[in-house]
């Protein structure tokens, strides 16, 4: 399972589904396709021998996030047909933009390739596996503080953005 073709197929599928995810006007399709992309990414992580990251990706991004997206989207009122027709961007335009993006990426790759990239040997001490738990709790406790801050921000975001202003708040 470790051959390069699997990786190439996985990567191309990821890109394909990502393009699909942004090309539909109906957001709920995009959310579900995003979940599919996350699932593919987690498979790829498994194949790159980092199972913990794969598990996190699967459960959090592919599962929890998609559920949150779908639940929030289903709480909104979808635009009716007339509005949808007004806001629609034609498929042709989307495909042209995609094509342009491909051109830009190709051009940048070409430019990069024309400059000689000499590869740098990997550091040896990365090869020894450091336990993830040790890594997170001992080496990276600063990032944990950051994560706590972001969590609190998320709570406040929900409170601020989704709570209705009631009149009984004193000024």
């Amino acid at each position, binding site marked *: 399972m470790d051959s390069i073709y699997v990786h190439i197929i996985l990567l191309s599928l990821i890109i394909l589904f990502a393009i699909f995810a942004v090309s539909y006007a109906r957001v709920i399709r995009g959310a579900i396709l995003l979940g599919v992309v996350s699932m593919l990414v987690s498979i790829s992580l498994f194949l790159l021998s980092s199972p913990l990251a794969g598990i996190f990706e699967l459960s959090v991004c592919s599962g929890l996030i998609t559920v949150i997206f779908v639940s929030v989207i289903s709480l909104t009122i979808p635009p009716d047909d007339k509005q949808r027709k007004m806001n629609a961007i034609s498929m042709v335009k989307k495909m042209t933009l995609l094509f342009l993006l491909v051109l830009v990426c190709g051009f*940048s790759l070409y430019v990069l390739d024309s400059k000689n990239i000499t590869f740098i040997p990997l550091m040896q001490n990365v090869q020894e596996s450091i336990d993830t738990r040790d890594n997170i709790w001992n080496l990276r406790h600063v990032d944990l503080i950051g994560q706590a801050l972001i969590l609190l921000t998320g709570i406040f975001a929900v409170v601020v953005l989704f709570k209705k202003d009631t009149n009984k708040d004193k000024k």
Partner: protein
Amino acid sequence: MNILLNIFIIIPVLLGILLYFLPTKYNITKIVLFLITVSLNCFFSIYFYGKEILFNTHVLFRLDLYFRYYDLSSFMILVLAIIAFLTAIYSVAFMKKDKNTYTFYAFMLLALSFTNGILLTDNFIVLLIFWEALMIPMFAMIAVGKNQAFLTAIKTLIISSVADLCLMFGVMLICVVGGSFVISQVNIDISQPGALFAFIMIFLGATAKAGAMPFHSWIPDASVKAPIPFMVFIVTAVEKILSIYLLIRIVKDFFVIDIGSDISIYAMSFGVVTLLVANMLAIYQKDFKKMLSYASIGQAGYMIVAISSITVFGMFAALFHMIAHIVYKSCLFFVAGNIEQAEGSTEISSIKNNLRQTMPYTFISFILAGSAFAGVPFFFAFFSKEMIYESAISVSWIFYICLAVGSLLSAVAIMNWAVKLFFSKPKDKIIQEKEVSTFMFIPTIITALACLMFGIFHKVPYNLITGIIGQETGEHSSIVAVILIVVSVLVLVLALVNNLYTCKKSQSGLGFVLVALNYFKVDKLNENKSFDPYEIFIKLIRKFSNIMFVIDKAVNYFYDVIVPVSVNFVSASVKKAHNGNLSIYLLWVVLGIIFIFIIF
């Protein structure tokens, strides 16, 4: 001996400033202070005469400024002091009704002190400072004159500034070549590099002060507009004293020039040109004061010729002639002032009364001074003129011919005016004698008598000057002296004959001289003022300012129109480009990344 400096320089300055700022209720005090200062100046110049005093301001100001009071400066200071005294007495009466009198007094004291400073200093820089500073009193004294005097004052300022620029340049070159700022230490051979140019510059500066062409054109204008005491004090006394002082020092101390060298001949020709043109122009004048001023310029030419002959005899002659000129010219100006006080103006057409009757003592003074002017024997200027002729002849006889012609012209002019003023109106039995006030009368008579006295007793000034210059050496062949005297007398007789003859014919009094001059188109010269470089300069300035105006408009157009329009255009396009569309912004990001990859 610090007291020397104080008396001559500082006290007049301080009193002048005091006079300027005192309020009007102290008018009598002002006049008294003025007279006291001038008298003190006179007294001390007599008291200290002949001593040699050196003085250094090192203790006072921590600067090494040397002042030197020696024979030449003491003589000059004495002459200046006496004239200042006489002018002061005259001006008390002359300017009594003028509202600007006290300004005049204040600035006259300032001018006195600055001149004393120039005569006393031994440092080139201080000389320049005082020389420049002298322009301030000159300007102020002209500007308090009649209407339109302000423009004349500005003209004076500009012409003097240009002349002073030459002087400054010359002085600086002398300091560089001579190597020192101390006047008494400088002695340069004319053949050194740069020395010739320095000589020319400083010569121009010094002669310009006396009124040589082309720096002369302010003097006639000032003579009409400015008050008479100004003309006497500044134009006759101060200017001539300063220029002769500087010229003598140039020729005697600063430079070593050979007699009869090229530079000497050029300088003498310069003096001759001044002399001839000025005397020619003097004939045409219709105003007595203007004629006197042109005559002044002419006499300056005489002195320049004398000094430029480089001989000791020439310097002697110049000094002598300077004193003589001061005495008789101031007398003539005082006469003019008396006439102006009595008649209102000195123009020919406005003299109504028979002045011989109404102002007899003025008439007598005029006769005395006029004779001295013409060069009648036994009057003051006769002796000096003979000496000038002799020094000119010692270089070349051409100069002598020109000088003789010049004196013919001046004799004709003064006789013409004599007729016009005093002999033209018929006697009228009714009119009373209306002489001027005592204050004005006394200086007139004193100077007139001095013309006669010093003419008879000419050994007195002769010995004075010998004490300064030294014994005049050089051959005087008596034959030459006799020829000179004969020629001068002939000139006078010719002028007299001419006058009487034409007086019989017409009222003109100028006779064949006028005809001759008209033949040379000198009258056109007088009308067009084409000899006046100041007017030419003004015309050029007008053209230049028109060009500058056009350039300025173009620059304004650039700043007022082009720059704001282009800035607005760029800013409006940038503002339009920010339309809030997120995809556009993201596109910019992509473009930016591509740009980076291209350039890197």
